[in-house]
């Protein structure tokens, strides 16, 4: 069966070159970087080289990079580490309604423990308003976290502007750039960012590795206590092979990004237009054009449910994802789609295709060939579609 992986925002395959580099560090150069013998020093050197590669990719200095076990840990460390270090200065925190759970849940945990949290709304395209940011900042605001690009609908936020305001008002600004890294330029200086989260497995590096950028001068209370690795900011034996893989993945992404983004943008638009042309009662979620990640397609297909779509696609070898509540086992569909003002019943039928390096135009055309048939079959089964045909239910 043809296999078309269109879930690169969930995770990516490891680049073969990256994987074979990692193998060397698993089986031959396996020293612990804290050891002073040659095995250890060889690993230590490679680790520091990887730190430089990661730092380079985001325009940071090596010593501003803390390696973690992934984006989730980096988000948690940024939020909890900084609020603990600065809690005497104030208790007010700001974020947006469309953040990843790693940010939202961590902030909500703090909100239950003595902090005061403002969650900014977004417009129908998922964008935060710079005006809202200005209004939300109070004298006791110490920290703000706004993501660079959204993982579900691909909306790119006006980070540089928000960062400028944060800096003017003395608010520490954290950005989750897990989804934007490798797709659009990420530069901590140009973006006026104090802290930045990135994750390796979204850019063809290994799972279980991420990094937090912390601008020099920002204090951070460590969360992992122990051997004092990562300059005492994150204890635990370093995942050297993983980190080295992440470093090389950054380098490869940096080389390929400009060209690849153009290629993906074309595929994205072909898929988006193809779907809206071939299927009726479809809504495109998120902005069009350059305000959207080049690899993200997100649509709501009315009168069918997301998980059913996913399962049907999967049987044809197509891997996608959905903002359906059924996927997660909760009752509410995607908090992102709801924050964008989409009614529950339509949000349930949303589909995300996220393109990546291996995808070709044939892949896109295969989806455009199969998806309409699937939707037709599911709609025939759907009691809601009847009603549309009988015009008792409003359609898009």
């Amino acid at each position, binding site marked *: 069966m043809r296999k078309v992986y269109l879930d690169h925002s969930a995770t990516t395959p490891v680049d073969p070159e990256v994987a074979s580099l990692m193998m060397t560090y698993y089986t031959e150069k396996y020293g612990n970087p804290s050891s002073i013998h040659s095995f250890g020093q060889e690993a230590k050197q490679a680790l520091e080289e990887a730190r430089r590669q990661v730092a380079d990719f985001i325009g940071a200095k090596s010593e501003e990079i803390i390696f973690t076990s992934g984006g989730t840990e980096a988000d948690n460390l940024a939020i909890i580490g900084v609020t603990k270090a600065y809690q005497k200065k104030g208790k007010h925190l700001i974020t947006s309604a469309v953040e990843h759970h790693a940010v939202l849940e961590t902030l909500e945990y703090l909100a239950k423990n003595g902090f005061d949290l403002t969650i900014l709304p977004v417009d129908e395209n998922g964008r935060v308003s710079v005006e809202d940011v200005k209004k939300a900042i109070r004298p006791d605001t110490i920290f703000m976290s706004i993501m660079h690009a959204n993982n579900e609908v691909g909306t790119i936020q006006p980070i540089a502007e928000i960062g400028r305001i944060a800096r003017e008002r003395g608010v520490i600004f954290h950005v989750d750039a897990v989804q934007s890294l490798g797709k659009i330029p990420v530069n901590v200086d140009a973006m006026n960012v104090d802290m930045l989260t990135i994750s390796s497995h979204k850019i063809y590096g290994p799972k279980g590795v991420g990094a937090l950028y912390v601008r020099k001068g920002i204090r951070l209370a460590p969360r992992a206590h122990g051997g004092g690795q990562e300059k005492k900011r994150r204890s635990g034996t370093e995942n050297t092979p993983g980190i080295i893989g992440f470093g090389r993945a950054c380098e490869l992404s940096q080389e390929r990004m400009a060209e690849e983004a153009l290629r993906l943008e074309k595929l994205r638009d072909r898929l988006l237009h193809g779907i809206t042309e071939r299927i009726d009662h479809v809504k495109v979620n998120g902005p069009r054009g350059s305000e959207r990640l080049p690899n993200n397609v997100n649509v709501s297909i009315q009168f069918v*449910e997301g*998980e*059913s779509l996913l*399962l049907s696609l999967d049987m044809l070898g197509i891997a996608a994802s959905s903002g359906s509540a*059924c996927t997660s086992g909760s009752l509410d569909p995607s908090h992102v789609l709801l924050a964008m003002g989409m009614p*529950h019943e339509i949000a349930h039928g949303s589909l995300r295709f996220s393109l990546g390096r291996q995808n070709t135009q044939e892949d896109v055309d295969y989806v455009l060939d199969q998806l309409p048939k699937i939707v037709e079959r599911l709609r025939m*089964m*759907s*009691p809601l579609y009847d009603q549309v045909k009988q015009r008792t239910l409003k359609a898009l």
Partner: protein
Amino acid sequence: MYSEKVMDHFTNPRNVGEIPDADGVGEVGNAKCGDIMRIYLDIKGDIIKDVKFKTFGCGAAVATSSMVTEMVKGKTIDEALEISNAAVAEALGGLPPNKLHCSNLAADALHAAIKNYHEKMTKDKG
């Protein structure tokens, strides 16, 4: 995630469709929750002669709808009333834990259809 049996019923659902002028129609769930199941019954005497369904929902919702129609066809009304959501899930070889609540309502839809049948009967008589 799903058992083979669930995937079979999802891929080839039995008894999809409507029964025009059905003797009983039952619907549970709502679009807001992401699951709607509607069941149509054709009843002769005490026996469920024919049954059809339409479902908007996830894999489990479709499969349980399909399964309940298979289980109930040819049964008496009393026998049908004894079919529980749990029994449907069991007949499918189990469901993932997070699907046991909101997506496992097919028996409820069946019972709603039977109730609807009784109500119609009472009205007809009354």
